[in-house]
């Protein structure tokens, strides 16, 4: 059978179309608010979490999610009777909800920790402090990320 010009063009067109379909990279499922809650409950247990005392310093808009400076501080007198046991930081939409756990004590002088983190998407970051009386205090901050981290392709 002779190939008509019309058939040839439609065939060539479909091959081109198939060729331009981007290679799909499978990404892990983002941490959902449910995963965030589970991660928080793993640390906190059933204890109530109150809002306050904790301060989270993080830029509200970051260009590069690969390195986001973050400082958590807790208002505490840091005496033997009243101090900060630990600070836990979580995120909402990275592949994993945990960012870090930091263990302090009455000797810390100032209940403050700084580090640099990765954020895969614009999302909420939650910091929770556990005080010596085992009460939990939290604060949340929203961060807008223009270039995501964690899941990009490796060149």
């Amino acid at each position, binding site marked *: 059978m002779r190939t008509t010009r019309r058939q040839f063009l439609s065939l060539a067109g479909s091959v081109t179309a198939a060729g331009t379909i981007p*290679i799909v990279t499978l990404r892990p499922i983002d941490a959902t608010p449910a995963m965030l809650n589970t991660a928080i409950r793993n640390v906190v247990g059933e204890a109530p979490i109150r809002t306050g005392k904790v301060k989270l310093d993080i830029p509200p808009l970051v260009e590069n999610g690969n390195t986001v400076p973050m400082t958590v501080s807790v208002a505490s007198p840091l005496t033997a009777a009243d101090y900060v046991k630990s600070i836990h930081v979580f995120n909402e939409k990275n*592949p994993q909800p945990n960012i*870090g756990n930091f263990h*302090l004590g009455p*000797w810390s002088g*100032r*209940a403050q920790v700084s*580090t640099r983190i990765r954020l895969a998407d614009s999302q909420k970051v939650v910091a929770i402090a556990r005080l010596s009386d085992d009460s939990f205090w939290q604060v949340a901050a929203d961060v807008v990320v223009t270039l995501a981290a964690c*899941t990009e*392709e490796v060149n």
Partner: protein
Amino acid sequence: MAAALINVPARAKRGDVIEIRTLTSHIMETGFRHTAAGDLVPRDIITSFTCRYNGIEIFHADLYPAIAANPYLSFFTVAKESGKFEFEWIGDNGYSSTASASITVE
């Protein structure tokens, strides 16, 4: 291994609150990234950081893939006596690195 940068004041007055800053060189590969060929790049991160002041643990951190490459940590303590701060990083694939810094407390 000279892979770490430590910043501890050389001198302090007794009772001063001092800031300790540490930076160590590590790729902190998340284990969530793929190559262009679609292969998963295996996780390789530092999972644990400990700081001891004259042998007593004063700060400990559990790190996750969400910590940026070349982990930077800053924290505080009260200068109570002259001595040595020891730092230890432990990670995947048997990674272990230590560093130390000394302080004179007057």
